[in-house]
């Protein structure tokens, strides 16, 4: 599954929203922000909650279970209770297609 994989077309994910996909072993969220698309792991590093059920606030995603916040560009923790960051994935736009790079 190495390389870029098409997950959706741009109209599937309106600006300000996010959507989860399964790519091989990985569950990945693609978020659409004002400056483009970002992809990150759909699992909070604190208690494994699906972050895709949470809220997107600019470049920050808020976990629905305990409120941990992560930067979706870098994966870094921006608010506890999480202390470890989440994985992020490279995104490429090819025409209307959204592609995500996985291992």
């Amino acid at each position, binding site marked *: 599954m190495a390389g870029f994989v098409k997950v959706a077309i741009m109209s599937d994910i309106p600006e300000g929203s996010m*959507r989860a996909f*399964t790519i091989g072993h990985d*569950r990945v969220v693609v978020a659409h922000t004002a400056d483009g698309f970002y992809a990150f792991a759909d699992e909070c590093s604190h208690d*494994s*909650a*699906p972050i895709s059920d949470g809220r997107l606030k600019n470049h920050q995603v808020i976990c629905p*279970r305990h409120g941990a916040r992560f930067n979706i560009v870098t994966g870094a923790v921006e608010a506890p209770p999480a202390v470890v960051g989440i994985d992020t994935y490279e995104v490429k736009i090819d025409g209307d297609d959204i592609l995500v790079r996985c291992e």
Partner: protein
Amino acid sequence: MSNTAAIVGTTTDTPIQIPELAPELLRGPVWLKRRREKAREYFNSQPLPRRGLHLWRYTDPAVFEIRHDQMVDSAFREKADDVEKLEMKHLEEGSISGLVISHGGRDITVHAGEELKRQKVVVSTLSDAIASHPQIVESRLFGLVNETGGKFEALNCALFNDGIFVYVPRGTTLSKPVHLLREAGNPGSAQFPRTLIVVEENAEITVIDEYAGGADDIDSGVTYSNGAVEIFGGQDSRTRYVMLQRQGRGTNSYLTHRARIERGASMLTFPLAFGANLSKQNFGVTLNGPGADSQMYGVLFGTGRQHFDNHTLHHHSGGNTHSDIDMKVVLRDRAMSAYTGLIRIEQFAKTCEAYQENRNLLLNRGTRAETIPELEILNEDVQCSHGATIGPIDPEQVFYLGARGIDPEQAVRMIVRGFFEDSLSKVPEDLRQRIDDYVISRLEGL
């Protein structure tokens, strides 16, 4: 796998339905058809469990959804694998008393050894047992694993094609194990294996239940397996049940095991998990009468990107009962294990003892283990304890062995084998060497 990712189901999506049962599933007695229909209706009426619900915190329920075209329990026959040949040899030598080989959830072949025939122990397909032992099957099938367990239990109840039936008459002791070997199907197929084991009063048996086969790699397509095991232990019966899970790395495997044991009965359960891409297993024993004793010794070794989600339940519905759980987990590469263990003691079940331990050894960074012990104790006259550990190998142990001339890689192998040794020493002898080989092979290249 195609280069388009599968979109994960969400709660707003309409879950997959079973439109109708295939004609081959509607054979058999009226009560069976009714139970299947009831399970089908339940399955259709329920949404997928929400991630975050109890027991679904660490596993996405959508991975166990199957397509309509997978809803027929598939059968296939490949050439016999090495284990089939090995177990046939064991049968001929008399080190096991019976061998059942099942391809997919059906296509079941029973080989009975001398002891099995002499002792009048019944090992057959469920469809044969419905004809030969109608009352026993009707009164017990679906008694412990049925639609009330959840959506995926209902799926097995509705769609299982055939199953395996083991019956040990009153006062009978079978000295050698009965081995059930199930080969899951090719990529894209689904199996719904079902097992019913009835051990009557003062009877004794060891059953080795081995799940193998399935897709080797998720990139070539996923094999789906949804199993159900029901075990009834009569008064003063003694049952040993070994579940060996070594399915291929492209298999998503779901299994629900439930046993109920009566006064004075003992149950020894060995959940041994090595295989599958994603394995969610739920083992449970109800201790239903005074003096009942249940012990579980779990061994799990995850490698690569394997994901394990195991649950255990010891339900003390009778007083003066004893239970003990010891789950040992070793993980390497990027493997993940979650364990949730519940001890429930009812209000009138006094003077019970219940213990639970889950130890996790992480061999490198990137692995992950979660452990959640749960106690629901409704009276005060009990003795209970639980403990959990998660951590890497103690460097001092490696140093200690190094000081005696053992290189670090060999030291790690010795420590891991020592970690499992206590549990594996209780596994039936004819299986022990194979389990040890699985452990060694998973330590290669460390």
